[in-house]
C-alpha cells in the first residue's frame, strides 16, 4: 500500500477511483440489458488487439493487400487465421451489441433529459464505428470490398454541384484504386479509432455526471443510490458484469472458431477487379436495414439517397422528437407497441436487404422504409397525448 500512497500523493488516484468506480453508483432496478455498454468496451478491446496483430503482416497496397490477407495472414503466419477471424467476427458482433445497447436506450428513454449528451455522443460513436467498419471492409481488397467502396463512394455523386468532383477527391482517382485503399487504411487504423476513444471518454464522463437510467425511468439521487437504491459500480456491478462477459465470450469464441463464415463473404475471396461487378452487391448484415431504405424508394434514386442519409441520422434527434414527460417505455403502453413495431421493421428491412430488389420485394422495402420513419414521426404526436394525460391525471 506504500506504493499506492506514493502514487496518490502525485496523481490523486484514490480520488479518481472513488469518482469513477467505488463511489459511482448504479441503480438496482436495472436488468441485464444494462451490461451491454461494458460489453461494447470488451469487443472494442478485442478489435484493437486483433487489429494490431493483423497490422504486423497486412500490406496497404492494391497489388499486395489481397495476398497479404488471404495468403500471408491466413496461410503462412501461425495463428494468423485466428486473428483475422477474431477481427472479422468482432466487427460483426460489435454491431450486435451496439444495436442492443441503443435499443435499450430507446426503450427505457435513456436519451431523455438530462442524458441528451450521453445519447448524442453515443450516436456519434455509432456513426464513427460504421465509418470504421466501412473503411476496414475495403482493406482485404476482395471483390465485395472493392464494390462496396465503389458503390458507397458513388453515392456522393448525387450531392448537388460538388458531387462528381467530391467523389474523385474522396477516391483520389476516378475509380476506387490504390490511393483509396491507402487513405481508407490510414483512417481505419489511426484516425477513426482515435476519435472513437475520445468520444468514448466523453460518453463515459457524461454517464458519470448524470448516472445510469433505470427500468422505471425514475430519477434517483446519488444519496438514494448510496443508501439502498443502488450499488457501487466497483466491485458490485462489475462482479455481475464479469459473469455476463464470460457468457458473452463463450458465445463470441464459439462464433470465431465454428461459425466465422458468416462474417467472411465468399465473394470477397476473389481479388478486386474494377472491370467486373459481382452479380449482387450487398453490405454486411449490420448495414442491410439502411441499405434497404436506400433501395426502398426504388422509383427515385435521389429520394432513396435522402431517405438513406436521414435513416442513418434521424435517431440522433430522439431527445427532441420524443418530449413525453414519461421516460421509460415500461410505463408507456402505446410507446411499447410503437417500439416493437420499429424493432420488427428493422429486422424486416435487414432481411429484405439481402433479397433482390424486384417485384414484391421492392414494394415491401418501400413499405418497410415508411414504417421506419413513421416511428420517429409518431413520437412528437405521442408526446403530446401523453403530456395531456399526465396533466389530466394530476
Amino acid at each position, binding site marked *: 500500500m506504500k506504493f499506492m500512497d506514493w502514487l496518490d500523493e502525485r496523481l490523486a488516484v484514490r480520488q479518481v477511483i472513488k469518482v469513477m468506480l467505488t463511489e459511482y453508483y448504479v441503480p438496482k432496478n436495472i436488468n441485464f440489458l444494462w451490461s451491454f455498454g461494458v460489453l461494447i468496451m470488451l469487443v472494442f478491446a478485442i478489435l484493437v488487439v486483433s487489429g494490431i496483430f493483423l497490422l504486423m503482416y497486412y500490406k496497404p497496397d492494391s497489388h499486395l493487400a489481397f495476398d497479404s490477407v488471404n495468403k500471408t495472414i491466413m496461410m503462412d503466419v501461425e495463428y494468423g487465421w485466428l486473428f483475422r477471424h477474431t477481427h472479422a467476427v468482432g466487427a460483426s458482433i460489435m454491431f450486435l451489441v451496439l444495436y442492443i445497447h441503443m435499443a435499450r436506450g430507446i426503450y427505457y428513454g435513456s436519451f431523455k433529459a438530462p442524458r441528451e449528451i450521453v445519447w448524442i455522443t453515443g450516436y456519434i460513436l455509432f456513426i464513427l464505428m460504421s465509418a470504421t467498419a466501412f473503411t476496414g471492409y475495403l482493406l482485404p481488397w476482395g471483390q465485395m470490398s472493392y464494390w462496396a467502396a465503389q458503390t458507397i463512394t458513388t453515392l456522393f455523386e448525387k450531392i448537388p454541384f460538388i458531387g462528381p468532383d467530391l467523389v474523385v*477527391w*474522396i477516391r*483520389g482517382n*476516378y475509380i476506387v484504386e490504390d490511393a483509396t485503399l491507402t487513405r481508407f487504411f490510414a483512417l481505419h487504423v489511426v484516425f477513426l479509432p482515435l476519435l472513437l476513444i475520445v468520444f468514448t471518454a466523453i460518453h463515459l464522463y457524461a454517464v458519470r455526471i448524470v448516472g445510469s437510467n433505470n427500468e422505471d425511468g425514475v430519477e434517483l439521487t446519488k444519496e438514494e443510490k448510496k443508501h439502498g437504491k443502488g450499488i457501487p459500480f466497483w466491485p458490485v456491478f462489475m462482479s455481475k458484469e464479469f459473469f455476463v462477459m464470460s457468457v458473452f465470450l463463450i458465445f463470441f469464441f464459439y462464433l470465431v472458431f465454428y461459425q466465422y463464415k458468416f462474417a467472411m463473404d465468399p465473394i470477397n475471396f476473389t481479388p478486386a477487379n474494377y*472491370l467486373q461487378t459481382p*452479380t449482387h452487391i450487398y453490405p454486411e448484415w449490420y448495414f442491410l436495414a439502411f441499405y434497404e431504405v436506400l433501395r426502398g424508394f426504388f422509383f427515385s434514386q435521389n429520394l432513396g439517397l435522402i431517405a438513406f442519409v436521414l435513416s442513418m441520422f434521424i435517431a440522433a434527434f430522439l431527445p427532441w422528437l420524443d418530449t413525453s414527460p414519461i421516460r421509460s417505455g415500461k410505463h408507456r403502453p402505446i410507446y411499447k407497441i410503437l417500439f416493437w413495431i420499429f424493432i420488427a421493421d428493422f429486422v424486416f428491412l435487414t432481411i429484405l436487404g439481402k433479397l433482390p430488389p424486384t417485384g414484391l420485394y421492392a414494394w415491401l422495402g418501400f413499405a418497410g422504409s415508411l414504417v421506419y420513419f413513421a416511428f420517429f414521426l409518431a413520437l412528437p404526436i405521442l408526446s403530446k397525448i401523453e403530456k395531456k394525460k399526465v396533466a389530466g391525471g394530476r
Partner: protein
Amino acid sequence: MAEEKVSRRDFLLYAMGAWAAVGVGGVLYGMYKTWEPLPEVKAQATVTFDISTVQPGEVKVVNWRGKPVFVLKRTSDMVQCKDRSVEDVYTVVIGICTHLGCIPNWEADKKIWHCPCHGGEYDACGRNIFGPPPRPLDVPPFKLEGNNIVLGEEGPEYKKMKEKGLTV
C-alpha cells in the same frame, strides 16, 4: 480610457485569433490537397483512340479512367441514331449499366448489349430497350481529332449532344 473601444489586450487577442485562423486554414487546405488525384492519375484523364481501326460490326473496349468505353461501328442492319452517334456510324458509350453499375456484354447475334446482373438490354445505339435500366448508356466526353477520338475532353460534337441532353 472609456473612449478606447478596443484595448491593447483585446487587439492582441484578435490578432492572435486571426493569425491562428490563417494557420488552421492553411493546414486544412494542405490536407485537402493531399487527397487530390496524383499527377500520374490525372495523366490518365484523357485517352486517345484511333476509331478508324474499328471494323464494321465490331465492338472495341477502351479503358478510360478505369471505366470501359464501348466503341461500335454500326452496320446498316443495326438500329440507327444520328444524334447519338460519332461521325454518324460509331456508337461511343460508357460500358457501365445505368441500373446498378454492372458491365453489359455485346451479343453480336442479337445486336444488343445485355447486362448479366439484372437482365437490362441496350440497342446498338446504347439506348435502354428492356429491363431495369433507367436511361441509356452514358456518352463519355469526347473530342474528334481527325481519325482520333480523345476521351475526357469536350469537343464541339460532344457539346452539341450534351445540349440536346443525349449524353446521359
